[in-house]
């Protein structure tokens, strides 16, 4: 029952969460009606970026930080559940939301593509799996960050950090395409940050079955590491109240 309560809470805790889901679907539908020509678009890749990388930041904003800042955590943390359960049930709640959202979005894209014939839905199923995997990685990273930063700053911080990283990446690849720093930077990104590159290879069909499973496994492992860090942080966290 504790698991169910914490999983459901991830969806009901803010009105904005339902708004985000609905508006994301609306955007998928609207893009098909836009006057520009998305004929060259890989709808799977769009799903990967839009729902896999951006959506988790909005769904996980303040997942722990809101409770810590408001003091609600002091009621929750005195309940007989382990920090690991507390963290994992919330993560699971977000992951399930992601799974349902991505499945529904893929179905919507498939239906609209069938109706309009615009763009390409090649390997949409593989893209959907890769999207869910990358969604989980971003969610774990953002959830763990939320244990240490107050309110919704976890999402803003990740968003800003991602922007910085992309800026640096474009700078390095433009000016020092074969430089040591560029290669090193790319390696660090590839193996420590959510596996955007490795998972997109699955969707693009650039890897065989074994390679795809390896990429998926690595992403899952990275997600587990992010979660483990979050659990440790939560176990060590103090929940101070207002001073006397």
């Amino acid at each position: 029952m504790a698991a169910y309560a914490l999983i459901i809470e991830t969806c009901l805790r803010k009105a904005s969460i339902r708004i985000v889901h609905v508006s994301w679907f609306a955007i998928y539908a609207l893009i098909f009606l836009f006057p520009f020509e998305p004929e060259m678009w890989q709808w799977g890749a769009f799903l990967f970026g839009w729902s896999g990388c951006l959506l988790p930041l909005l769904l996980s904003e303040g997942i722990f930080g809101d409770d810590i800042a408001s003091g609600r955590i002091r009621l929750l943390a005195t309940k007989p559940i382990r920090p690991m359960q507390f963290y994992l049930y919330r993560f699971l709640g977000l992951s399930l939301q992601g799974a349902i959202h991505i499945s529904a979005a893929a179905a919507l894209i498939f239906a609209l593509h069938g109706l309009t014939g615009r763009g390409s839905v090649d390997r949409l199923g593989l893209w959907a799996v890769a999207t869910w995997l990358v969604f989980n990685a971003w969610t774990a990273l953002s959830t763990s960050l939320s244990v240490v930063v107050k309110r919704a700053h976890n999402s803003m911080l990740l968003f800003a950090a991602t922007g910085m990283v992309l800026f640096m990446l474009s700078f390095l690849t433009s000016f020092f395409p074969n430089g040591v720093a560029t290669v090193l930077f790319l390696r660090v990104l590839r193996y420590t940050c959510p596996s955007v590159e490795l998972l997109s290879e699955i969707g693009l069909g650039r890897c065989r079955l074994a390679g795809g499973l390896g990429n998926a496994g690595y992403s899952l492992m990275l997600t587990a590491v992010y979660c483990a860090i979050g659990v440790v942080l939560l176990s060590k966290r103090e929940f101070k109240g207002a001073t006397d």
Partner: protein
Amino acid sequence: MSDSEKETVPVIECRDVTKVYGGLKMGGATPVRALGNVSLQVGGGTIIGLIGPNGAGKTTFLSLIAGLIFPTEGLIRVCGHPARSVDARRKLGYVPESPVFLSRYSARAVMRHHAALRGVPRREIGDEADRLLAQVRLSEYAHRAVGGFSQGMKQRLALAVALLGDPELLLLDEPSNGLDPIGVIELRRVLSELRESGATIIISSHRLGELERLTSEYVFLHRGRIVKFGGEAAPQQAGRLRIDLLPGRCSVTQELLDPYGLLEVSESGLVVSVGGIEDAPVVVGRLVNAGAAITGVALETQDIEETFVRLCQERAS
């Protein structure tokens, strides 16, 4: 844990507990010692008033027992289990100073949510939620969103949440914040019933008169240290025995009155510090045996506020 072990294990055991905030974590700010070498044991079925001036460390003390913060030094056990362990949390209910709930949830949904986290069996959750909401007089607001609740209603809901699962230890941080007079009376009734059922309750409150009606046991905290603890600190029992004498009949000395403290003495009377009214015959008997002619005896008890002020003044000086 067997029943015999349960009886011998204190509900709360604190050994040399120190809590220091700040230091390196706060960017080099001066560390603040919120609690220093606090040791105490509390048995079952008691209500203890936790009092002290602002900044005395009351919330810190409750937070340590609730496992919300870690002690810098020392050991805390709740019903024999280390504080913050799942077993310790299973035994306690906690009402924070300003309870916060998800504002979109109704009072009943909040109760169901916390009951699930508390491990109340699924089939009992609905009944338990309704019973406790009725106990804190929130039944008619059960389906209303908590976001529209007043501070007093939130406080009552927090009490209902804390009572889920019949905790052996209840920690209440300023539970009467925002309560109306009927709410305060209800709170007293609920707490008295809980004590009778064997629960231990620790209440931190600034409303000293309200504590007086509930308990005669207090922990006085001052600058993170326990100044007084236990029944001997009970202000209604302790007091000053004022005795009027006919002048010149006997000379009163401290030795004559040991172990009672001779506070004031003059030709026409004296004031003796006693533990309670039961000490009066002993003191009077000793004076009569020494030849004193007593014309009047009066016990001046101190209420909790006077005791609180006196202790604070003593510590300040």
